């Protein structure tokens, strides 16, 4: 169940409302279809305008509670920043969402109907959740263009890729993303020769090519110059609305530039939620994180 006291603390009536509605909806659905999650897992249902529900998630590693009754919701089209001290459970939370780690208890839903705790990693990727890891991993020997081509949403079975060639509109899409990530001039260079910041961007571009509905970005500006960081913030702000974004970041200037709602994680659960100024003013946050 959703911890109401925590949500009250977050002082966000809208979120609480949505989460309660979602809960009702889910209970109703569960009573109908507990046995066959496959029936509804195909399409993303955003009827309550919420794209991600995490409800009462607990994950323990050898007795250490990495996540402790974590409850969190992300609205469709939202740009959310997650901050918190080291060991607060940020990466574990992303692992749960992408299927890398299974929670000991609790529920994780993508939209109204897709139960993330029952899907494998590729299935979750296919459902529309894209993740960028901390360390950029791109295909160094392929060009930036080819990296994007491979990431593109398409039929990825052998018999299709054997005969696949690019349609003009696909070429245009790749060119569009190259422009978005400012790599048009580097399109045909081997990706291994790009700068660290450019590699980060290329990986964000690969995420965009997959056309995910929800993007999870783990420290996307680590190792970028100030200028690059600023441009990345602009890119993310432009993406919000069409996509939903969850950004984990330590760089407060970057979080401020993004301007979205901020969630503070501490010891595996939500400590505070709100805009950056109100979160920074919260005495408990100052105590555990900012004041340290």
């Amino acid at each position, binding site marked *: 169940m959703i911890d109401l006291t925590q949500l009250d603390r977050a002082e966000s009536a809208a979120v609480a409302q949505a989460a309660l509605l979602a809960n009702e909806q889910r209970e109703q659905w569960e009573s109908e279809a507990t046995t066959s999650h496959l029936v509804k897992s195909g399409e993303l249902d955003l009827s309550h305008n919420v794209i991600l529900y995490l409800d009462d998630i607990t994950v323990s590693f050898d007795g250490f509670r990495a996540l402790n009754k974590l409850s969190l919701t992300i609205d469709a089209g939202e740009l959310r920043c997650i901050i918190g001290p080291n060991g607060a459970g940020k990466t574990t939370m992303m692992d749960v969402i992408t299927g890398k780690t299974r929670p000991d208890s609790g529920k994780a839903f993508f939209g109204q109907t897709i139960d993330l705790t029952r899907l494998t990693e590729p299935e979750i990727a296919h459902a529309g959740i894209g993740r960028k890891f901390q360390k950029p991993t791109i*295909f160094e020997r*392929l060009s930036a263009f080819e990296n994007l081509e491979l990431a593109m949403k398409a039929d990825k079975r052998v018999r299709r890729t054997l005969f696949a060639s690019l349609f003009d509109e696909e070429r245009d899409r790749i060119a569009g993303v190259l422009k978005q990530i400012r790599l048009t001039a580097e399109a045909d260079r081997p990706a291994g020769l790009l700068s660290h910041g450019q590699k980060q961007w290329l990986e964000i571009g690969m995420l965009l090519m997959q056309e995910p509905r929800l993007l999870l970005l783990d420290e996307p500006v680590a190792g970028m110059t100030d200028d690059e960081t600023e441009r990345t913030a602009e890119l993310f702000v432009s993406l919000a609305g069409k996509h939903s974004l969850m950004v984990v970041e330590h760089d407060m200037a970057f979080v401020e530039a993004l301007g979205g709602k901020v969630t503070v994680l501490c010891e595996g659960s939500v400590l505070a939620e709100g805009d950056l100024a109100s979160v920074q003013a919260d005495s408990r946050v100052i105590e555990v994180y900012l004041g340290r």
Partner: protein
Amino acid sequence: MRTPFTIRLIQSTPKSGWLAIAIFATLTLVCVPLAHLALPESNPLHLSAYTVSLLGKILCYMVVAVAMDLIWGYAGILSLGHGLFFALGGYAFGMYLMRQIGRDGSYGADLPDFMVFLDWKALPWYWAGSDSLLWALFLVVALPGIVAFVFGWFAFRSRIKGVYFSIITQALTYAAMLLFFRNETGFGGNNGFTDFKRIVGHDITSPEMRVTLFALSAALLIACLVLGRYLVSSRFGRVLAAIRDAESRVMFIGYNPLHYKLFIWTLSAVLCGLAGALYVPQVGIINPSEMSPANSIEIAVWVAVGGRGTLVGAVLGAGIVNLAKSFFTVTVPEYWPFFLGFLFIAVTLYLPDGVVGLWRSLRERRATAAASDAAAAPVPAPRAAASGPDPVAVSKGATA
């Protein structure tokens, strides 16, 4: 709009590549047959039966090298057991050749000589249909294909990689060799198959048959090169390259590496099988030593010498090493193993990209030298050089 498949197939090989293929085809499909059949032996351009068979044998090795390069050079999977697939194709076709001997064997019996010698009264069940050419051709493809598929399925599904995979392939071919050495296995034991007489009723030692087999080998090599070129320049080839770079990331963007590896692995084995089937009638013998681990390692050496990751490199490597081998084994046979070992060490230390890599770096060095000459001249060449990303292309532009 997308480009039609045939156009893409043609475009996958560059113009210079097609020119080289055309020259190669003229040489192998016209010149060599004419030189062997039409020219009298007194003519200095006449090719002897020995030479034609030797060249035909090397063409088969080149096909094997291309197959090896597809999995090692492009997918990063080093097989040290490819001799097995080559031998399986050879044995599959050898069964047909044994049946074509008919009653002309030394015992004059319906059964192949080695079975009479073992006092067998009837063909074992797995020899059924071996008198049919079509069945033999089917087996040539199916036998290596199925063995590779089953082995690959288990190995790749268990995510066995790198040196562990290489060692297991080595063990596989060694185990198969021990199995085929046994008389009870029913493939002629350590003598294997030999004394072939005909193919589809035609004398196997006739010059026409020799030239036909030679031309078929050349055609197979050309087909392999065009197919290989298409594969590595297609999106499929880029997925292979991506798997070689970062396999887990490939999974994360939605490809299943198992299927990709399995496809190229099985295809590579089938190509080896086809080469083996053409090799056996040209050399006139197949025995279990073809499955020895040393043979499979030699295949890897050909590709390393030529330059892995380029198809032409694999072909060159197979040609260079085998020509050297026939030279050594005729003149100073005892030194061949030493030379092979020396070659492998030298290539690993000094030519990591093989002969093709050497050629490329020489050309690049010449190009940069030309570029610096041009830059020294009082023309605005440096500006042009600064704007272009590709140093080779730029230097070409500067020299032009």
